[in-house]
């Protein structure tokens, strides 16, 4: 049962005359209408372009040093290698992966899925975007000034420098500080929007799971990012005037920096993945035409993950010299946070059971996600076990694990979401044949790149090494070849999507038969999203294909 029938193109003016409405791209024209927009959809598109630029930029850096890693000696030289991996990490984390799904897809779809006209604070939304841009410009400045080689984790005392050596660090930490506020303000906006602007009839239990995911993410953004702000501010001040808080030369403690840093950066990884989980809940149900399995469990597990994520930061520090008691506590809680994630994964697989499954790009990416994210999640268990982590910490095993969850998780989910919502966002359809090639290239390229890195790590290859023992070369060569295939696949996806934007066929309002509110608008939506405020009388997974006759009920 759909909740709202689509009204096409007609709305009522204040004097109740009929007014034709164009989509939000054509409602206003000119560059100023974009730069000064308060339309959440335009802001979402701007974030999408910006974050993808960061993704491709940082990706190219990775391909450069993956090429270098094909030989045991470093052609780039250690200094250049160290700068490249630092920039790759910093740009990927701060410029791309933290904002990408929430600020791009979240901004676009949160109000639509809630049946609202915009977010609670549209001007604050635009400000968030410009803060993000400002932070990016500052970071780019740091890159140009050069010599940033601390790793994106900025561990002290190596990241506390004297004199002119401190300049790139001061600029970079300043850029991160500024960018953090973009994340915080987006979080504030989303929390208030979810609480106050749901369409009539949309109870919490009738919200799409993508919204639950964004809500849980927003809680983390709001509570964790301020601590990052203080951490980088303190590091910045350390570099300007050597206060001594983190510098043992003056009585400070480098492990204190790690506690400060990871108190944000662990919840941050859940900022990265929770929205991805939300997308998967949407795509897996829409493309199997089946009600999501375990709605309440998935919704509540997002909140549980958000809460527990604040309690596990010490698992990045098992070998740092922290006490055994602390280590035990963090290890235990780390396993606790794994349980809600497992519940989600099982629920997604169960959603496929007796569904009507379309093998299209969104579904193929969803299936890929299940494959790669599960590997990422399972390998986290090795790292949460204290004794095993002693060996694996700071090795390539960790690098493989986090790429499996961040890229095999978030990026694959982002790709699923981009394909799923491409028609709605752009009013065009991409070509399925093109898309399938992309899936294959990405799947193969990604797994070849990162699967070998697990063995590299457990066999003794340390992270952040420009040069290595020749015994590791074979795995590195395989990994690098995989990375080039992955890069090609991602470029291919960019290419056919741009082609579809320009030459693709017009997309219908609801190509997949979705039931959540964004599908009850035209493609692309009008500026104010809905002609009439939607009234919701059911949850967003009641597809017409569901067979509710008694004969088809079975218990398993």
């Amino acid at each position, binding site marked *: 049962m759909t909740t709202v029938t689509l009204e096409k193109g007609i709305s009522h003016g204040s004097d109740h005359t009929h007014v034709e409405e164009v989509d939000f791209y054509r409602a206003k024209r000119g560059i100023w209408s974009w730069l000064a927009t308060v339309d959440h959809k335009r802001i979402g598109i701007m974030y999408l372009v910006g974050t993808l630029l960061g993704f491709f930029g940082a990706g190219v850096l990775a391909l450069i040093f993956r090429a270098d890693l094909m030989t045991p000696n470093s052609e780039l030289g250690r200094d250049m290698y160290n700068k490249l991996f630092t920039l790759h990490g910093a740009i990927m984390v701060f410029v791309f992966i933290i904002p990408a799904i929430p600020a791009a897809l979240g901004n676009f779809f949160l109000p639509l899925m809630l049946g609202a006209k915009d977010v609670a604070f549209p001007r604050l939304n635009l400000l968030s975007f410009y803060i993000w841009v400002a932070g990016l410009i500052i970071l780019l400045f740091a890159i140009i000034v050069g010599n940033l080689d601390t790793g994106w984790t900025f*561990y002290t*005392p*190596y990241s506390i420098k004297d*004199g002119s*050596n401190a300049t790139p660090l001061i600029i970079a930490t300043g850029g991160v500080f500024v960018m953090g506020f973009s994340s915080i303000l987006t979080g504030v906006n989303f929390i208030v929007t979810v609480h106050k602007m749901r369409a009539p009839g949309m109870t919490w239990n009738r919200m799409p799971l993508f919204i639950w995911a964004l809500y849980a993410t927003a809680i983390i953004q709001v509570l964790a990012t301020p601590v990052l702000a203080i951490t980088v501010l303190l590091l910045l001040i350390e570099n300007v005037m050597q206060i001594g808080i983190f510098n043992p*030369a003056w009585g*400070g403690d*480098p*492990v204190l920096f790690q506690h400060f840093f990871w108190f944000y950066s662990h919840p941050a990884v859940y900022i990265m993945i929770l929205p991805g989980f939300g997308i998967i809940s949407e795509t897996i149900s829409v493309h*199997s*035409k089946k*009600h999501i399995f*375990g*709605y309440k469990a998935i919704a509540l597990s997002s909140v549980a993950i958000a809460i527990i994520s604040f309690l596990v930061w010490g698992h990045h520090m098992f*070998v*740092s010299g922290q006490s*055994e008691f602390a*280590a035990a506590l963090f*290890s235990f809680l780390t*396993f606790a946070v794994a*349980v809600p994630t*497992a519940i989600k994964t*099982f629920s997604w*697989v*169960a959603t*496929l*059971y*007796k569904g*009507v*499954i379309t*093998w299209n790009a969104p*579904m193929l990416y969803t*299936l890929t996600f*299940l*494959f790669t994210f*599960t590997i990422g999640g399972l390998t986290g*268990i*090795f790292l*949460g*076990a*204290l*004794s095993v982590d*002693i*060996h694996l910490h*700071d090795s390539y095993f960790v690098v493989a694990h986090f790429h499996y969850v961040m890229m095999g998780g978030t990026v694959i989910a982002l790709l699923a979401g981009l394909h799923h919502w491409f028609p709605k966002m752009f009013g065009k359809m991409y070509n399925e044949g093109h898309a399938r090639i992309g899936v294959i290239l990405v799947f193969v390229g990604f797994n070849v790149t990162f699967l070998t890195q697990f063995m590299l790590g*457990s066999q*003794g290859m*340390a*992270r952040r*090494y*420009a*040069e*290595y023992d020749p015994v590791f070369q074979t795995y590195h060569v395989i990994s690098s070849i995989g990375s080039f295939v992955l890069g090609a696949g991602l470029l291919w996806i960019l290419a056919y999507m741009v082609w579809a934007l320009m030459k693709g066929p017009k997309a219908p309002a609801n190509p997949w038969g979705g039931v959540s509110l964004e599908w009850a608008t035209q493609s692309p939506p009008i500026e104010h999203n809905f002609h009439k405020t939607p009234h919701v009388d059911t949850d967003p*997974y009641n597809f017409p*294909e*569901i*067979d*509710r006759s008694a004969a088809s*009920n079975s218990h*398993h």
Partner: protein
Amino acid sequence: MTGFSFISAASSAFLADSGGKGFWMPEVASDFAEHVDALFMFILVLSVFFFILLMGFTGYFAWKYKESPTNTRSSPISHNFKLEFLWSAIPTVLLVVIFAWGFRDFTMLSTAPADALEVRVVAQQWNWTISYPKLDRECTSTVGTDGGANVDFYLPVNRPFTVQMSSNDVLHSFWIPAFRVKRDVLPNRYTGFTVTPTRTGIYPMFCSEYCGNGHSKMQGTVHVLSPEDFQKKFIDTDLCKLDPKAPDYKPKLFAKFGCNSCHGVKPEQGIIVGPNLYGRYGNVESTNVGPVKMDDDYIRESIEYPEKKLVDGFAGKAMPSFRGRITEVQLAALIDYIKSLK
């Protein structure tokens, strides 16, 4: 206990045979390594099992319930309490077991028996120094032709040793993969662990906390010897004895302070990070404060106040200061050594 032995034996077979490396892990060369590999194997088996199960169902459902003319209606099932309970409870139980097992083995590293061999480890950018306080030995790193530092670390098999570690500058981390042990090395306090090597052989040792330019180049070679060999080849020799009268005292001092990580002493080493010192004594250097003669005073000042008078082209290289951690005797020896480089 029998379960543990079984898994341990199985893991040895799969992960690393008694002869050497396995698919996943290097040799099992310590008591701790055996335990780590057993738990690793347990987690691996469980992971592979659940992964195949999950992917099996996923693949099967995706194929079997593909849309088709005969499959156009989906099931209304959207929850099942029994199933959801089971798939929450079973992982919880398994994870608690894994946690407890990991924690129990982890505590092995902090149990130091009275007869453990005491080893002091000092890390700096970019080399290791390993000393044995009770044996009055200090093994410093030597620099190879590739500019990398390597320290030889001698140990007797089947005897526990305890490391007490500190850093002279930034964070480093001490990792012996064959032993499966690792611990960060801090500048403001001691860290350490205890472990027993159980297999003779030669094993690599790495720095595993990013520490700058030479992070991948500060390594070690662990030599685990039989008790007889340890006595013969280490205790009864002059290995690692830092005797000021010995002819190699000065080059060893040069290595101990890490000077060789940045300064080449032979022309073929070229520029590593800082100026090559071969034939440099007596030269007039062009610096940021004008021309400076490289004499005893300039060398002393560079060691204690490296930020003054930087040779052109090396301005951003951040040589650390040794003020307060080098004695007059050592300073004099180093100056002498640099003089002799020609």
